[in-house]
């Protein structure tokens, strides 16, 4: 038996080398998925628009700064036409990207953090805790959560107050973020839990327990890294549903007219009677954006899920 002296730095270097190799393999596999790459390109464009809509169309037009005629079809001055207040549709739609994507992003974070914590705790702790948490999860899965969201919205607005603001987002929209988070974590929790159930039977979890690691540490350092792939894929798919739900909630009147998301623009279009008037230019731009973003997130999410969670792939 010869003891091999292993220096701390060489272990670290080796770990990095492995990580890099893993990342390269991931990029190679993902780039082979054409749907995933197309989705990623679409998302890159929308991310750019969401970060700096002002670069392309100037600041958001309001009723007083409107530049066109009322409900004017597309022309050379306004290539996407104008709304009922004479605001340029291109301007509105690009600024809508920022609001829709920000709400979608925040709602996704809340949903995934909530779902992952519940899933990991339920799966790892097991027993009564698991039974209780899963009862709650199933309850939320069955419930028509959309109607619940509508009821919760005024309650939450009352609780946080109408003056609340977070990263430039006003109370009305924060309510949408919270409501989406509260009502859509159940799917994530279920998926994560089932993965945790198989991870916790693995040898390294037993080893960690034997050398004295507490449940909190095991969940953070040993279980979590082994479900992180699933969480990543789930985050992307949740983003799709969050944008979808935000659009729907804004459409039925929970949005903020002063911070118009795509759903809010469509709500205004419906309120003006644009569909019956045949004013397609008022509807097509925001509608196309919603569909493109939701589709792109779904494509990327599915591709990620296949690449990161190979079990799904080999089953077929």
């Amino acid at each position, binding site marked *: 038996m010869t003891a091999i002296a292993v220096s701390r730095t060489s272990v670290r270097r080796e770990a990095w080398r492995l990580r890099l190799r893993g990342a390269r393999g991931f990029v190679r596999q993902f780039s082979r998925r054409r749907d995933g790459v197309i989705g990623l390109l679409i998302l890159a464009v929308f991310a750019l628009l969401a970060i700096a809509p002002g670069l392309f169309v100037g600041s958001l037009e309001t009723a007083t700064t409107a530049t066109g005629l009322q409900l004017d079809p597309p022309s050379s001055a306004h290539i996407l036409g104008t709304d009922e207040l004479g605001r340029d549709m291109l301007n509105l739609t690009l600024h809508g990207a920022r609001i829709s994507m920000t709400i979608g992003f925040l709602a996704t974070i809340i949903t995934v953090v909530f779902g992952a914590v519940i899933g990991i705790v339920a799966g790892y702790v097991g027993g009564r805790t698991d039974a209780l948490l899963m009862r709650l999860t*199933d*309850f939320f*899965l*069955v*419930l*028509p*959560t*959309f*109607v*619940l969201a*509508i*009821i*919760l919205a*005024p*309650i939450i*607005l*009352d609780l946080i107050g109408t003056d609340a603001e977070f990263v430039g987002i006003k109370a009305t929209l924060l309510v949408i973020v919270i409501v989406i988070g509260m009502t859509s974590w159940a799917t994530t929790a279920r998926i994560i839990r089932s993965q945790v159930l198989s991870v916790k039977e693995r040898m390294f979890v037993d080893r960690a327990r034997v050398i004295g690691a507490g449940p909190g540490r095991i969940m953070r350092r040993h279980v979590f890294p082994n479900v992180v792939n699933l969480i990543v894929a789930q985050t992307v798919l949740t983003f*799709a549903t969050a944008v*979808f739900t935000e*659009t*729907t909630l804004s*459409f*039925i*009147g*929970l949005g903020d007219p002063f911070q118009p998301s795509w759903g809010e623009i*469509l709500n205004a*279009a*419906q309120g003006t009677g*644009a*569909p*019956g*008037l*045949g004013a*397609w230019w008022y*509807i*097509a731009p925001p*509608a196309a954006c*919603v*569909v493109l973003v*939701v*589709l792109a997130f*779904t*494509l990327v999410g599915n591709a990620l899920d296949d690449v990161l969670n190979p079990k799904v792939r080999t089953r*077929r």
Partner: protein
Amino acid sequence: MGSRYLGRKLGQAVMTIFAIVILNFVLFRMMPGSPERLLHNPHLGQEQLDALRTRWGLDKPLIPDQLIAYLGATATGDLGVSIKFQNRPAIDVISDFLWPTVLLIGLGEIVAILVGLTVGAYAGWKRGGAVDRVGTGASLILYSMPYFVIGMPLIIIFAAGLHWFPTSGMSSVGISRLDFIGQVIDIGKHLVLPLTTVSLGLIGSYSIIMRSAILETRSEDYMTTARAKGLSDGRQLRAHAFPNAMLPMVTIIAINLGYVVAGAITAEVVFNWPGLGSLTVLALQERDYPVLQATFLLLSVAVVIANLVADLLYGFLDPRVRA
């Protein structure tokens, strides 16, 4: 069917409905503008406050007295009084708006199940073929569209543009003067576009799920047996793959119902369809909480019961889960 399986599923459904009623009780106490808040009115004297409290039963403790009173009222169908509709009982208001929604969702589900499952089955069976490419691509796009995004272009093209169908409502003005057949035709004309919207919204997800369910069956042993017996391609699909793929669909269709309700709400708004969805949005705008809550209670209980039926149906169709 095993009585233990039946009992467990029934018990779960009853527990869920009970939890929904409790949730409704809690939400009702938290609503802005509830009686609890009104009592903060500074112009009321202590005597008047006490009188009001006694009248509303607020002098009794929240739990158990108020809770029991609420449960009793809910059980006897007393769901509060509408604010918007001249103090009519919420349950009466809801029943006025119930049937248009049942008609729309019911027919929409039937059309979507027929079309979605057929498209999904063929796409999965001939993977990579023409049906698969076009069908799955179209399904993915439909799946990404909120119902109202499907409905608005339909109005622009078929109602505002071609004038084939009316833009909104469920019937024309003066429908009562038509004879029965005329009335059916009139409602049918109004129904076409909303129904197409709801069906298209559902077809996307149904065909995607059916496709993977069919793919799932292809590697099963009974499919190898069917091939070895020399059954034709169509018979393999119809008699062996399809029935087995249908099993998970039963559960998925039931679970999906909660989402269909959400979609139908927006479809009803787009077409001004006088159903529970339009009522929900109206109640939201008018802050008519009793109606909003009653709608939530009714829809949740309906979804739970649909899930119970699906569970029982599943147990009946697949003996393996009854254990």
